[in-house]
């Protein structure tokens, strides 16, 4: 059966969705020409957090604008980087005089445009630093010259903990260290049962035979490097947990923050089953689940898939993770 979406003109899709988002969330303000989303009410001066990237990953990033997380989000077209001009404008709007922390997923376009925006903003007098998110273990080739690992689930973790620290008055320098430390302690890996369908398109980005899954899939509908046999949730989840635990060198007694993320069309019941399997697999290794987040937070349009992010926990991260957060998509 062909895939279909609720939309008007595909060219207006992102813009109209942003209009709907801010209508539903008066805590957000939408600017156009150029496009970005910023908190409607700004509190005490603090370091501002700006993130962004291609659309199609919602609720990330615009759903994470609010107290305890981002100050502004910059959405590009579906799966395409926002422009440097957008990021520059958002940076200017977000800045409260204490500098701006950019949180950037490692994709060529995003990196280039955020870097340019950072340089322009710096010239205009705003202190800008960047935390690059490159947690996707599936793209860890070890090639120094290559594009490096992609950015995925750790983005949410970094936005959450740096957001909390910024709210508590951390300096830009502290936030950079915190953000990079969080990335270095985080790794992700994803498995998909189906591709992603572009708005207005009728077919997903790839078709899978019934007995195969994409192992190590990214968030832009691209194929994964590996295909693995379709299997039970338990078996599939083990193929995520194993490599992550190995790469993070987790040992018996270590604690982790577990983020089980639905990539679009994955049902809450499936996510719960997957989390149960993660919990079991870690339990068998003696690794403790210190905190967990299970839900649909970083999507790849309508892809049926699950990504798993593990972050090695420590007291500071846990304290910041637990801190109050008030955004459209994450609240506690």
């Amino acid at each position, binding site marked *: 059966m062909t895939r279909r979406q609720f939309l008007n003109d595909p060219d207006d899709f992102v813009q109209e969705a942003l209009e709907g988002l801010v209508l539903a969330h008066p805590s957000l303000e939408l600017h156009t020409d*150029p496009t970005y989303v910023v908190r409607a009410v700004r509190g005490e001066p603090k370091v501002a957090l700006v993130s962004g990237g291609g659309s199609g990953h919602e609720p990330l990033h615009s759903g994470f604008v609010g107290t305890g997380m981002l100050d502004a989000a910059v959405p590009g077209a579906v799966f395409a980087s926002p*422009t*440097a*001009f957008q990021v520059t404008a958002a940076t200017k709007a977000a800045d409260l005089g204490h500098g701006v922390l950019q949180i950037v997923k490692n994709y060529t376009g995003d990196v*280039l*445009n955020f870097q*340019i925006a950072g340089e*322009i903003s710096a010239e205009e007098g705003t202190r800008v630093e960047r935390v690059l998110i490159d947690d996707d273990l599936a793209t860890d080739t070890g090639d120094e010259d290559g594009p490096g690992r992609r950015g995925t689930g750790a983005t949410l973790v970094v936005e959450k903990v740096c957001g909390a620290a910024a709210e508590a008055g951390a300096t830009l320098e502290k936030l950079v260290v915190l953000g990079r430390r969080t990335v270095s302690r985080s790794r992700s890996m994803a498995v998909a049962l189906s591709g992603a369908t572009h708005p207005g398109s009728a077919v997903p980005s790839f078709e899978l035979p019934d007995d195969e899954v994409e192992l190590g899939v990214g968030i832009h509908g691209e194929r994964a490097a590996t295909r693995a046999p379709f299997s039970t949730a338990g078996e599939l989840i083990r193929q995520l947990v194993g490599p992550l635990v190995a790469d993070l060198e987790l040992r018996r007694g270590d604690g982790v923050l577990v983020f089980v993320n639905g990539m679009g069309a994955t049902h809450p019941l499936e996510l719960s089953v997957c989390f149960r399997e993660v919990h079991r697999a870690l339990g068998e290794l003696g690794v403790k689940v210190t905190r967990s987040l299970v839900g649909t937070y970083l999507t790849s349009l309508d892809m049926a898939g699950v990504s798993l992010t593990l972050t090695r926990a420590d007291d500071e991260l846990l304290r910041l993770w637990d801190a109050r957060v008030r955004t459209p998509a994450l609240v506690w």
Partner: protein
Amino acid sequence: MSRELTGPDAREWMQRFVDVFNQERTALAELDRRAGDGDFGTNLASALGQASRRMSDGPSDWASAVFARVSEGFLDTGGTSGPLFGMWFRELSKATAKSADAAALAAGVAAGVATVQRLGHAQVGDKTMVDAMLPAAEAMTGEDLDADLAAAAAAARAGAASTQDLRARRGRSSYVGDVAVGVLDPGAVTVALFFESARA
């Protein structure tokens, strides 16, 4: 002392660049389709359209302002060419003022290619816009504006031509390997068109 590039000069130059690009657009788009992802034509058209609008929206009597408006047009566009050309024009804007003498313009072009290389990590021979930019910058002596622009145009065109036989090592066409051999790099060709548009 040779003539300076005034605001109106810069504006006319940019207008000619837009016109020439539009004439060549289909051919350039085809190059990216053959060796890249095919969006170069759309990206450039969008950037230059925005640039034109921005130039006519506000007064831009200064050469630096003209380049600034073009820069903004590119910086509000996607692809790799958008932000890189945006920074290229931004350096031109920063190096110039109400008008620019040969030295200022040569310095701007040199700063432009330096910034593009810093951001894009491309060397000459990687089959990118740098293959046209760097020879152009080196051809400019900073002494005579018209002579510099003529030399830059010739060097850029030669650099663009040299990309035909290369395998790409940066940008999207690097993914297609040997398929890119035989195809000119559209970014480099666009740099040639840019310098060629300097003369009426």
